[in-house]
């Protein structure tokens, strides 16, 4: 049951499974059309801006920017995909298949790096591995070197370095999706193969990897979209990605149109890639789903001695990197700024963060449910494709997405204001633009991909006709949804809520663009205090971001563990 909690990208991008033809529901269609329109608002606005451009930026872009930026971006994406896939799959397999010291703790601790925003991780890694950081200082003290010219040390401020940083904080997406598959099917299939004489290595390569491929792809797709929308980490580490050229085109060359054009092309490519990937593995999903029918669960392999110790170390390493290093670096800064805890502004920011993230999580769940239900009812390929396209907006940098929504909301507000002045002589001013509601809305749209993927995959694990059974027993569609489908989806919805909550706590760039006066979240508080590029001055708030995200992650893991034990 719990094990449906995978955030399955497969699901998020696959067409609804064929089902018995069912009656169209006009009210539901109207509702879902409205929701789809809202979700599409920023992307369509950006598309409008892109189309309004003249294309005068392109000779320059094509000749001097894009080839280089595209190569760097692809290279970065390939490295991050390889990094997150190998870390995610290995750790997932270790905690599912083996028993070793600290296994239970590590099983949830491996999700913790998700709580660290990539831009803070980049800074922390940069400092940790810098000449003046603890690692190189120790090396110099041990060997008596004086400057960097005396020894070689790998440079974290490089494309490879950026890939390491991003992999260290993003691998949990792959870990989460893959672990579920291993829990559901891995051990028993592996057991079968082994009884048939296959060696462990062969089992892993020939059986486990193939069955987990859709889950790995699902996790990696989320990772890659986050890699594409990242600006803070790559900028700090000196990696010139396509995203960076969006910003230099917009801000340094004053061409928002040109920037929107690059962004839209990125979106189309991401969309095409996801579609192609999904098309290429239509069949795997079928096998995977069928395999879940197996119920017996063989015990974990008990490791002992050095093997056990080594395995613990191996599984702990990603946690130490993605969570430990940022915690160490910001904890150190925070220890010298303890007075910041007394700052009332910090408490306001914490409150705002929690309220915004809670509201966003709830709202995102609602729109994800509406869209999924609409796709089931409408079964229009156009509607499905459009909403999927809006979800790919997750690959856009927050600022760009935020701008799209800003323009749309401001136009709405000003039009409403004009009408109200005309008709009633009252001014409604800027109703939505620059309100906390705009912040919730933009985060909901950005993170819809996370919620939708998680819920849809949960839904696809349910027997297709489960609500029809309820209907045939005389329940209305609404009743059957409430009484049957929603309760069964509980864990999937909870997972979705936690992922959206955590990402909203971390969200900086769209929030800062759309927030009202005097409204700070923890992330904007860090940014404001990190005056002139000194994140250390926001260390206390940065720690709070990590801790605040940690709480729901831990609670989720425990809820899942309870569920699993109940089931076994």
């Amino acid at each position: 049951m719990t094990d449906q909690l995978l955030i399955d990208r497969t699901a998020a991008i696959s067409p609804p499974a064929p089902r018995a033809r069912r009656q169209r529901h006009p009210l539901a269609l109207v509702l879902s059309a409205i929701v789809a329109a809202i979700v599409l608002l920023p992307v369509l606005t950006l598309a409008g801006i892109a189309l309004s451009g003249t294309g005068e930026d392109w000779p320059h872009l094509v000749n001097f920017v894009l080839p280089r930026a595209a190569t760097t971006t692809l290279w970065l994406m390939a490295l991050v995909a390889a990094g997150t896939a190998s870390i995610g799959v290995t750790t997932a397999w270790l905690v599912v298949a083996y028993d070793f010291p600290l296994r239970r703790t590590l099983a949830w601790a491996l999700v913790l790096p998700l709580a660290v925003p990539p831009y803070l991780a980049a800074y922390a890694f940069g400092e940790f591995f810098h000449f003046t950081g603890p690692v190189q200082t120790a090396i110099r003290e041990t060997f008596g070197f004086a400057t960097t010219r005396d020894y070689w040390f790998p440079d974290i401020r490089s494309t490879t370095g950026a890939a390491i940083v991003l992999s260290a904080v993003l691998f949990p997406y792959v870990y989460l999706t893959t672990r579920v598959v291993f829990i559901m099917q891995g051990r028993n299939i592996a057991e079968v193969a082994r009884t048939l004489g296959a060696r462990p290595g062969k089992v892993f390569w020939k059986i486990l990897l193939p069955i987990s491929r859709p889950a790995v792809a699902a996790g990696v797709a989320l990772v890659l979209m986050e890699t594409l929308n990242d600006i803070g980490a790559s900028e700090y580490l000196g990696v010139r990605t396509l995203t960076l050229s969006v910003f230099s085109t917009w801000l340094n060359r004053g061409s928002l149109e040109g920037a929107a054009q690059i962004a839209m092309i990125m979106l189309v490519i991401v969309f095409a890639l996801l579609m192609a990937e999904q098309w290429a593995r239509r069949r795997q999903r079928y096998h995977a789903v069928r395999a879940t029918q197996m119920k017996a669960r063989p015990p974990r392999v008990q490791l002992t001695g050095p093997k056990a110790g080594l395995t613990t170390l191996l599984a702990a390493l990603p946690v130490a990197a993605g969570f430990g290093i940022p915690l160490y670096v910001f904890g150190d800064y925070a220890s010298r700024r303890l007075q910041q805890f007394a700052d009332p502004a910090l408490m306001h920011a914490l409150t705002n963060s929690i309220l915004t993230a809670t509201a966003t999580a709830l709202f995102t769940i609602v729109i994800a449910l509406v869209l999924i239900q609409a796709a089931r009812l409408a079964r229009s390929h156009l509607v499905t494709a459009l909403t999927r396209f809006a979800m790919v907006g997750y690959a856009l940098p927050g600022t760009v997405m935020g701008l799209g929504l800003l323009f749309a909301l401001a136009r709405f507000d000003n039009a409403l204001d004009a009408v109200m002045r005309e008709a009633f002589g009252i001014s409604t001013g800027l109703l939505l633009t620059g309100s906390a509601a705009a912040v919730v809305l933009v985060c909901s749209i950005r993170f819809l991909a996370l919620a939708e993927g998680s819920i849809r995959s949960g839904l696809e694990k349910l027997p297709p006709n489960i609500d029809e059974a309820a209907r045939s027993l005389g329940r209305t569609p609404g009743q059957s949804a409430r009484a049957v489908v929603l309760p069964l989806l509980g864990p999937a919805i909870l997972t979705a809520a936690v992922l959206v909550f955590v990402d909203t706590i971390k969200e900086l760039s769209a929030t800062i663009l759309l927030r009202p006066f005097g409204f700070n979240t923890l992330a904007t508080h860090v940014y404001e205090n990190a005056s002139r590029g000194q994140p250390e001055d926001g260390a206390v708030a940065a720690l709070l971001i990590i801790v605040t995200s940690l709480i729901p992650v831990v609670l989720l893991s425990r809820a899942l563990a309870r569920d699993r034990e109940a089931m076994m």
Partner: protein
Amino acid sequence: MNLQSMLPRKAVFAAAAVAGTVLAAPLALAQETVNIYSYRQPDLIKPVLDAFTEETGIATEVLFLDKGLEDRIAAEGTNSPADVILTVDIARLQAAKDKGVTQALDDETINANIPAEYRDEEGHWFGVTRRGRVIWASKDRVTEDAMSYADLADPKWKGKICIRSGQHDYNIALFASLIANWGEAETEEWMKGFKENLARAPDGNDRGQAQNIMAGECDLALGNTYYVGLMMNNEEEPEQKDWADAIKVIFPTIDEDSGTHVNVSGMALAKNAPNRDEALELMRFLASDAAQEIYAAQVYEYPVKEGVEASADVQSFGELNADTLPLTEIAKNRRAASEMVDRVGLDDGPSS
């Protein structure tokens, strides 16, 4: 299993109560307020704003946003609450004017206090503080005490220079001023040589380059003057005092008869400012001796108003002889500078 059970109920109520107060607060002090849309971090402007409120009784509200600020004001249109715009760079002042979100001002006090080269010809903006983009040189390894920007392309510095991204506002402004002075072709030649002298592909921020000099990765870097003051006085991270101690400031010249490239932080009156009178008072205040002194002392920038002294630490760098090229000339060449950085591939670092 639902979300609410995950949060202690009391915390939710407390959170709701606090949120209520937060939302209600701006309404409560709605009497006399200036709404500031700022590219500068609130911390940096708080001392002057506090002094302003103390003197005039006018409250201030700051909205900090470092990307897309003009776009937001433009989108808000006639209903925009923005009264004044504060920026950290000439580029953003000019961008605001170009977007049509500012209004012209012809105010005697401001005109008298701010030299003409730091004001827009049509009165759309003026500079509040200045900073030089200077050379930071290793105290141990660099014997030169005087250099020009042109010297940075001299092959003798091959592999010795560190900078942050060439697409950063501060570098773009410097390159734009070189284009204005030297012309595009000569600047491009210079930039090619400069690129070959880099020790590594540009990254990090300005202070990181001082750190690199201390680490021995490079001997020269480009940086803004105030960072040196900030590093010298960083009590929370005293390690940064060592970075500052590793470098000396050299004020490079653009040409023999011109001085060091200077950029400004500045302000503009928003086009649809709802509190125009209060905004005007703030603008006059920031151009006054009192505000200029606070700025100089707290953030280590050079005052714009003549007769106001820089802080002692900043004066210890030596004499700033600012280039007198009008800032608008710099703003005009930004696009060319940004394209040149791409064309030369400056951010890719040295080719060998």
